[in-house]
């Protein structure tokens, strides 16, 4: 069927693809976002024009409310809170898709088996995305403990829920839409969203957010199948693919399988095995004054930011220190581990906010050879991503994870608030290395003090 709206959806899809294509470089990325937004406008206007009997009053009210909420979020959100924001938006996207499918279910008297199946799939993925995203949001915002929440029989419960869901879904289709079964599907999907997300710890959030991002796209595509709408199917497929790619990159960044992230409950405080592997390490703790002298003698400095930097909101302070060092003729680079922070690219956005040029930010493969002739590696609130145990300790939970080779630098200066272990719950042997120096304190305070000391030298 060729009509005005289907041509508009093709055009919108082309603009989405071109928009994402332009995201391949920071220079063109902003244009890309505009192009995609324009595509969305075309899709919306075409829908409003070409479908008769839609409730304009309801739509306008909804759009105004949504626009106010969305714009407020977009303007107010701190860059450090970007993971929460993306998490909750994923939830709204999934929720919208599930609601559309539910409306279709409630209001159509004759539904084919195929459409009924797609409605069930759309309800399932959409609702799971909604509740899962709200849990992820709660964890990131600190409403819920960032620690994995586990209880005995959790996996069994999930398995039972999954089977019950399949059975209920089958009966909805079999009975051509029996309400009770429909509500069971809805309820189980909502519960699964919660039970699958609560056992996942804070630092595994980049994977969860990427996965939920993918789900929100798949939910939109499933709704596209319900409505037989190419616009939804293509856009949903693009977002689904995007989320999956990011999920895969994040898993590789931790050398873990997706199953291990979802079911592994890594990050839980583990009982010491008592086999004597818990080595006591002796550390050297320096003041910022002493650290300043080391920086003064250095020529090449690599900054390694971690989640601690975001928590301390220290991105501007680090830029000030870096600018001072650069003025003195030193080279400053930033090493960004793929899973640093709480979402893909989190550190890059934070540093960009502090006006740090993106060409100074280097990813793992690019930066690792740079540590060989680096004088000072400054580790700010990162822990597991610089733990050398990942290279050799087969019993370590992070064994095999690609790490930043900071220990190859002449000196490693590590800033942490306390000696607490990182997310993986393990002691970092790096802290005891001969070339390692600890400077304790809040990252922002430490950097500001360091800058003062540097100026006084």
């Amino acid at each position, binding site marked *: 069927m060729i009509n005005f709206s289907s041509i508009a959806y093709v055009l919108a899809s082309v603009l989405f693809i071109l928009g994402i294509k332009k995201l391949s470089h920071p220079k063109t990325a902003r244009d*890309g976002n505009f192009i995609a937004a324009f595509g969305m406008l075309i899709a919306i206007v075409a829908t409003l024009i070409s479908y008769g009997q839609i*409730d304009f009053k309801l739509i306008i009210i909804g759009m105004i409310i949504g626009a106010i909420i969305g714009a407020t979020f977009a303007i107010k959100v701190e860059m450090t809170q970007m993971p929460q924001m993306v998490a909750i938006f994923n939830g709204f996207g999934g929720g*919208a898709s599930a609601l559309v499918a539910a409306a279709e279910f409630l209001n159509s008297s004759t539904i084919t088996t195929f459409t009924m199946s797609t409605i069930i799939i759309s309800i399932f993925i959409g609702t799971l995305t909604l509740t899962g995203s709200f849990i992820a949001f709660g964890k990131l915002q600190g409403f819920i403990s960032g620690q994995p929440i586990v209880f005995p029989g959790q996996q069994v419960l999930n398995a039972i829920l999954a089977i019950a869901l399949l059975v209920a879904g089958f009966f909805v289709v079999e009975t051509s839409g029996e309400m009770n079964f429909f509500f069971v599907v809805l309820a189980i999907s909502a519960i699964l969203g919660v039970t699958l997300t609560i056992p996942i710890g804070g630092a595994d959030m980049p994977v969860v957010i990427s996965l939920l991002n993918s789900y929100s796209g798949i939910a939109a595509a499933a709704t596209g199948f319900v409505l*037989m709408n190419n*616009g939804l199917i293509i856009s949903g497929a693009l977002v689904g693919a995007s989320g999956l790619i990011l999920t895969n990159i994040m898993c590789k960044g931790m050398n873990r399988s997706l199953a291990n992230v979802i079911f592994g409950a890594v990050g839980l405080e583990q009982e010491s095995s008592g086999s004597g592997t818990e080595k006591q390490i002796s550390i050297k703790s320096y003041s910022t004054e002493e650290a300043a002298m080391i920086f003064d003698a250095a020529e090449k400095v690599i900054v390694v930011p971690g989640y601690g930097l975001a928590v301390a909101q220290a991105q501007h302070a680090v830029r000030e220190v870096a600018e001072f060092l650069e003025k003195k003729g030193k080279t400053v680079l930033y090493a960004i581990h793929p899973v640093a922070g709480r979402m893909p690219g989190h550190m890059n956005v934070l540093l960009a906010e502090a006006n740090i040029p993106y060409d100074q930010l280097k990813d793992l493969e690019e930066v690792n050879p740079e540590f060989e002739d680096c004088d000072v590696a400054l580790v700010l609130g990162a822990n597991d991503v610089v733990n050398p145990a990942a290279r050799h300790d087969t019993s370590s939970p992070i064994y095999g994870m690609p790490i930043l080779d900071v220990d190859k630098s002449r000196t490693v200066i590590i800033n942490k608030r306390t000696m607490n272990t990182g997310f993986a719950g393990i002691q970092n042997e790096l802290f005891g290395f001969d070339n390692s120096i600890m400077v304790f304190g809040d990252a922002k305070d430490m950097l500001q003090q360091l800058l003062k000391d540097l100026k006084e030298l």
Partner: protein
Amino acid sequence: MDINILTVFILAIFVGFEIITKVPPTLHTPLMSGSNAISGIAIVGAIISTKISGEVGSYLGLIAVIFATINVIGGFMVTDRMLKMFKRK
């Protein structure tokens, strides 16, 4: 079921994989928020669902319109806010 629609879906996934692997890690957060906005395409479905008669259905449609609009407006705006910050030396 219409096989064409499945063809479109599968080809779109392949296109997605091709273009998204070219996005550099630096832009992964804007990619996410931007693709989030694109998944707000559910707004099209939300608009259509308000036409279906029946009170419950149109209220579900209203909530769907709200959710999807949050996604679209918030997603594109915050992506633009982030991308504005990326500067070269």
